[in-house]
């Protein structure tokens, strides 16, 4: 089985998608980012150069181009680079793409994939560190996919490109270099299936995107303290696999929800709400939320680290829920 970093796995998933469907087309460049992994994109350009367009800096119209093309039979993949750029396309994501299937009573659909890099990436400052997926999740009609591992990234990308709905594939920019064995063949990972990344018995840490990696580090630290941590990667925020989350909490009786979006109306809040409203009696202690505090992301490295819900905060949260 070949080794791939996450950028290579994403590109591999896209290449399989373009091979499988002549309607698939790419709008955007820099799909593998602009860091050390950027060369992963070369394979895509070599095999499918004629099916890639490099659009002008017109985020709103490009979103609409992809949406309108999808409604007329194409399968566009639209790359935005930094997720905050897509704030310019808010109306197009939320009010056009997400609504069209419902408001046409199923006459039309918009099978477009939007691809974004989110999160604290080191020096992004207030305007380039945004993680907008909780805001997207606050609207019906969008599928939201958060790949964490290379293996997941490839299979989830295949499912995104095959989906008949507008799908946002959004990943933390710092994860592109993560490397593991990835099957060379074509495969899909279905939406709405959370993955138990590490089994444990004392506390369930429910996380997504970069927070999954931080949670796995925290679990390794806590193992030395005889605390057994189960780490669940939700993988898709919409649809959300609540059953797997509840099964884990019923087993451990304790819950920590971790995510990079803001703590108010954020993903961690939703994860806790979905457990408390369905399985309150399974909880032996009050759940804890580890999320980004309500402040813009500052530039200076120690300040930036202070607002990031990283490994150490997860360790502390797990200790708290286990003490109670």
């Amino acid at each position: 089985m070949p080794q791939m970093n996450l950028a290579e796995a994403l590109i591999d998933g896209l290449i399989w998608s373009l091979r499988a469907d002549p309607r698939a087309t790419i709008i955007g460049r820099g799909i593998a980012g602009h860091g050390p992994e950027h060369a992963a994109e070369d394979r895509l350009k070599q095999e499918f150069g004629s099916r890639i367009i490099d659009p002008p800096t017109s985020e709103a119209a490009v979103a609409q181009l992809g949406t309108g093309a999808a409604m007329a039979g194409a399968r566009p993949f639209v790359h935005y680079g930094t997720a905050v750029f897509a704030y310019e396309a808010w109306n197009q994501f939320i009010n056009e793409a997400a609504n069209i299937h419902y408001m046409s009573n199923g006459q039309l659909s918009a099978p477009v994939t939007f691809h974004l890099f989110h999160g604290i990436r080191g020096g992004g400052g207030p305007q380039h560190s945004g993680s907008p997926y909780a805001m997207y999740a606050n609207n019906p009609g969008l599928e939201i996919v958060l790949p964490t591992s290379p293996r997941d990234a490839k299979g989830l990308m295949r499912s995104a490109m095959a989906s008949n709905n507008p799908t946002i594939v959004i990943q933390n920019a710092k994860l592109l270099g993560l490397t593991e064995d990835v099957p060379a063949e074509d495969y899909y990972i279905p939406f709405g299936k959370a993955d138990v990344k590490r089994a444990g018995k004392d506390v369930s840490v429910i996380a997504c995107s970069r927070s999954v990696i931080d949670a796995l580090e925290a679990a390794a630290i806590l193992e030395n303290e005889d605390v057994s941590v189960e780490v669940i990667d939700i993988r898709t925020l919409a649809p959300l696999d609540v059953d797997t989350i509840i099964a884990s909490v019923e087993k451990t009786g304790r819950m920590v929800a971790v995510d990079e979006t803001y703590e108010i109306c954020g993903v961690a809040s939703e994860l806790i709400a979905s457990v408390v409203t369905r399985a309150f009696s399974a909880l032996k202690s009050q759940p804890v939320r580890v999320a980004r505090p309500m402040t813009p992301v500052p530039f200076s490295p120690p300040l930036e680290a202070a607002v990031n819900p990283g490994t150490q905060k997860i360790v502390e949260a797990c200790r708290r829920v286990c003490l109670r």
Partner: protein
Amino acid sequence: MTKPSHTERLELFRRMLHMRRFEEMVIRLAQSHEYTGRQHLHIGHEATGAAVAMAMRDGDKIHTTHRNHGYVIACGADPGRAFAEIMGRRDGLNGGKGGSWHLCDATRGFQSTSAMVGGSIALAAGAAFALKLAKSGNISFAHFGDGTLDEGVAYEALNIASIYELPVLFVCENNSKAGQRPSSMLAAARLQDVPAALQIHCELVDGADSDAAQIVFQNAADRVRTTGRPVFVEATLERWPGSHQVKADFPTGVTDISLALNLDKVEGKHADWIKRSDPLLRATRALIEDGVSDLVGLLELDAKVNKLMEESRSFAEASPFPDVSVAFTGVFAS
């Protein structure tokens, strides 16, 4: 096309008449039912809408704004299902989920009607992109008002259509007002200065002149098909005095096409609009003067259309409200 044939002119007139009588029935429905929607009536724009619809071929796509009723009807959608949708009924074109703002009929290439100013123009560019990728030979149509050019996304969409040579016909209905204020506030002297600066071929037409509109839109669509490049047509229109999204009324009266031969007798506050800007009366007069038809023939057609609209109204009124359970279904495609 240098001059439309008698058959083509009559067909355009037939569609215009359907559009006008449809909207008049919408006013009556609004007056006699307490429904919650608003209406953005297409009265006064019929020559433009019908000419655009006649320039469409099977497989073409059109995106409009929420001033959409006329286009939906001109494209051949069932008026009964359109009335039902406006009233939020089960048998509506969109099952009651869209309402007046979002009527669509995908079987006729009539894609969404976006109620966001600037929505249709870029979606239609997207449709053109898909049609071009599929090497279909089809084109797309973008209908929008002059206010759309105030939006940044319009500039972006025009630019993208030009640089990627997308086969899209931009149809700008310039009625110069949004609500009761000017609908576009452009520093450019003319609307078409904007697309022209982006290397898009532009045409200007009197949007209330059915013959001129038919020629210009047919030729513009042919040009898009032949060159594969976008074309921008500005249709100048005078806003109908009754155009108001919540007050449904007939300030210019229920249309009487026989008035076309007696325009000098028209008096009152809105006489100017009736005499000069009503495309249906202008078309009626032109058809009779040119010997394409006579008043008796046109009145017979009118009676048929009125009967159809009455039947369509009955269909819509008989349609129940949707079962509440459907509010929760159809968010995602399977």
